């Protein structure tokens, strides 16, 4: 098991020091694919590079299976790493690129051949062994870099935005491929990306970073359904926010009164940090968050009233952009049932699915 405790990275000397990674802690179990997700500059790549040993650690500790790795040079960590730019050795063939880590370990020639052939077959690269990297497509080059990282059976695999240089269609194919290989090898993997969809699709667990801090860790579905902060709700998927008043609640759930009087029994209540609390408009107790697919759109009934500003077809669903009472910005509704369509300009009523609603409160208290 990989354990990260209070990992910190500061650049520059005080008083001008910049904290790029701020006391980050998490654990990753054997065989798990753990994704560090966040906007650019959030510290996820720096964290990965510290785990790789490529970046000196300013504070905290990295342990693997109980052994302290905090100051161990990268050569001695037995890790595999895949870079965004692939970083293939341009002067070596595909075979020699893959064999590199075995040669540094002084393995015998026959064994090297056997192991490299095996890993190239697993990555469907056996036909390219003699080729130079420059003659391969981007996807093939990325597979070579994965082969190079896996061939010496590292104890963990680090992937730094491995799909960022590929086009959209190939990205989707390659992420499935990476997941397949990761499962096949059963290797503990750390994956860095800024693409939340990619993170959702590939990970066992996702760690969301913001401004050098780890803000939330959880299974993808969990992070999506129960974002622990407004930032998390915003960054992962689309989120609609409505001003809300607390109308009673106990334990983890609570009832919120929306503008227009509708009452929603939100499945979860989250208390906002002071920094995020300022985003709650004056006169409201908090914000009710609900995902576009968890909003029901209708002509009448209980709910928030609004008007359709834009109606667009997503193929399977209709996406309505609605100017709704009490919504922060325009509300987005994805209607998957095609029984009723709404024209642009039509008056509508929006209802939130209580089970999928999260109530963010400025301060927890009784009504």
């Amino acid at each position, binding site marked *: 098991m990989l354990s990260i405790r209070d990992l910190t990275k500061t650049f520059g000397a005080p008083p001008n020091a910049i904290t790029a990674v701020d006391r980050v802690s998490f654990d990753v179990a054997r065989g798990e694919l753990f994704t560090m997700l966040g906007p650019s500059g959030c510290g996820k790549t720096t964290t990965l590079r510290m785990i*790789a*040993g*490529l970046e000196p650690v300013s504070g905290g500790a990295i342990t*693997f*299976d109980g*052994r302290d790795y905090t100051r*161990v*040079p*990268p*050569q*001695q*960590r*037995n*890790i*595999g*790493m895949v*870079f965004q*730019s692939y*970083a293939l*050795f*341009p*002067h070596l063939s595909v075979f020699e690129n893959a064999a*590199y*880590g075995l040669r*540094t*370990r*002084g393995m015998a020639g026959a064994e090297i051949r056997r192991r490299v052939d095996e890993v190239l077959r697993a990555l469907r690269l056996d036909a390219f062994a003699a080729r130079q990297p420059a003659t391969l497509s981007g996807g093939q080059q990325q597979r070579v*870099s994965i082969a*190079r*990282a896996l061939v*010496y059976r590292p*104890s963990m695999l*680090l992937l730094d935005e491995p799909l960022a240089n590929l086009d959209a269609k190939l990205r989707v194919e390659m992420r499935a491929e990476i997941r397949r290989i990761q499962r096949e090898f059963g290797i503990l993997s750390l994956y860095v990306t800024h693409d939340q969809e990619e993170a959702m699709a590939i990970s066992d667990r996702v760690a969301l970073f913001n401004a050098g801090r780890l803000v939330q860790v959880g299974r993808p579905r969990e992070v999506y359904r129960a974002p622990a902060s407004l930032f998390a709700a915003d960054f992962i998927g689309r989120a609609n926010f409505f001003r809300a008043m607390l109308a009673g609640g106990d334990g983890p759930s609570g009832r919120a009164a929306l503008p227009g009087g509708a009452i929603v029994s939100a499945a979860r209540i989250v208390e906002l940090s002071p920094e995020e609390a300022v985003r709650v408009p004056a006169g409201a107790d908090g914000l009710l968050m609900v995902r576009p697919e968890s909003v029901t759109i209708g002509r009448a009934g209980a709910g928030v009233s609004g008007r359709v500003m834009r109606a667009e077809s997503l193929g399977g669903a209709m996406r309505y952009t609605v100017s709704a009472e009490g919504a922060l910005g325009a509300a987005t509704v994805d209607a998957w049932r095609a029984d009723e369509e709404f024209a642009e300009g039509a008056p509508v009523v929006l209802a939130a699915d209580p089970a999928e609603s999260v109530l963010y409160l400025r301060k927890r208290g009784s009504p």
Partner: protein
Amino acid sequence: MTPSAFGTRAADRALPLAIGGAAALIALLFLIYPLSSAVLGAFVKNGQPVALANLTLANFERFLVSASYQRALWHSLATGAAATALATALSLPMAYAVARVAMPLRATILGLSVLPLISPPFIGAYAWVILLGNSGIFTSLLRDYLGIGLPSIYGFFGVTVALALSYFPYVFLVLQGAFAAVDTHIEEAATVAGASRWRVLRTVTLPMILPTVAAGMLIVFIKAIGDFGIPSILGGEYQVLPTLIYYQIHGFFNLNGAAAIAMVNVALTLLALGALAWINRTRSVATVSGTARAAARPLPAPLRGVAIAYVWLVLIVANLPQAVTVLYSFSERWGGTLLPSVYGFENYRRIVGEIAGPAMNSVVLAGAATLICLVFGAVTAHAVARGRIAGRWAVDLIVMVPFVLPGLVIGVAYLVAFNEGPLVLTGTATILVLAYFTRRVAFVFRSASAAIFQLDRRLEEASAVCGASWATTMRRVVLPLIAPALLAGGILVFATLIGEISVTVLLYSARWKTLTISIYEYLLGNDIAKASALGTVTILLTFALVAAASRLAGRNMADLFR
């Protein structure tokens, strides 16, 4: 996951540190120590030890009282400035034409333009006597057919012409690059606004590249005031600072006096360098876009013809000395006629028995220096590029200063530092090799820096993560990838060292006489035929080497000198 599985030793971590330390020690011993010795020596009377009590300005007083010192200073300034002006005047139209006029054989032109830089300047210097001397080819032609009398080739006129034509490529190449890189949209904007071609050039293009012009001029000036070979051949009684240094040492072995003259020479160079640094800082502000684009614009046919003719005329004139040297080397009788009357290999037969030793010496000395340059240059370039050495500017300075300082100054510094004291090297091959290394390491350093700069550092990280030690990463990843650049830099070092004279002339000994010293002795002994034959061999050798380097680097020969 036990470390023993990787064979990674603690020594691997110490290796970069050890190499960095060794580099610093070499820099200290062979760059900083000689230069500071010369500085100190300049303030001590000849024969006295360096001590606080002995400090004096006496060596510099000569510049106040001695007419010959004052003349030498004045001559250096005058020939330096005049040669710079002449080189710039020749280069401006030529650079514009090559960059902007649809020019056939542009790559060839650029390649030919650096020939004067490649062939050792002093070898061609004597050719100017044959061309422009009292009974020279052109002198006779001009006198007989046009009635024009030329000033004497010995002195200001000859030194200036030879310096200008030897060093004009520096300003030409810089200008050509600038003309090619100017964003043509800006000029097009002026044209659309109604400006004529001439007006665009005068009000838009030239002002934009003015800092570049100044930068190129300063390089020529620095080279001109540091040159020894040309004034030593064409100067005669007309002394400049480098020849004054030479005679102080060869005539009187007045090391401290020579050091003082050297300091004046250094001061002039540093002044020009300071101006250059200042201009380079402002230059980045100017709108010269980095991406060179095809900026050739259609020109009326007659004008285009004039431009092409002009470019080739300058090229031919600048390469005349080399051509004359080759011609002379094959002439068996040349007297009273425009061209030699009998051709043959007699001159080569005459030198064949004499060149084996000097040629061997040149190859050994240049080869050893090149090897040291390669190791030191590559290692420091890598350390600097990867941020392992604090104070990048300091390394740049240490490497670049000996490169731009006049060779004679380095020679004096080495003599002062290693003639006595803790490390006595005078008269050995070591002193030549080290001085060569000091003067030329910049070639390798710069070309290695450029190559490493283009190298994705993730390649090294990937190698480290794969378990490779620092040494393995260097050997298997970095070195193979920068090898072409290193080799090109190395060949350039070797080639230019084969033609080196200004350091050699102060530091050589009877045992370690080089090709250039042999040529110099032939010239002083007035055996022009032998000098030409040996000169031709040297020119062809250096040319072949530089051509090989440019092929290896995949760049035009001209780009090796930019």
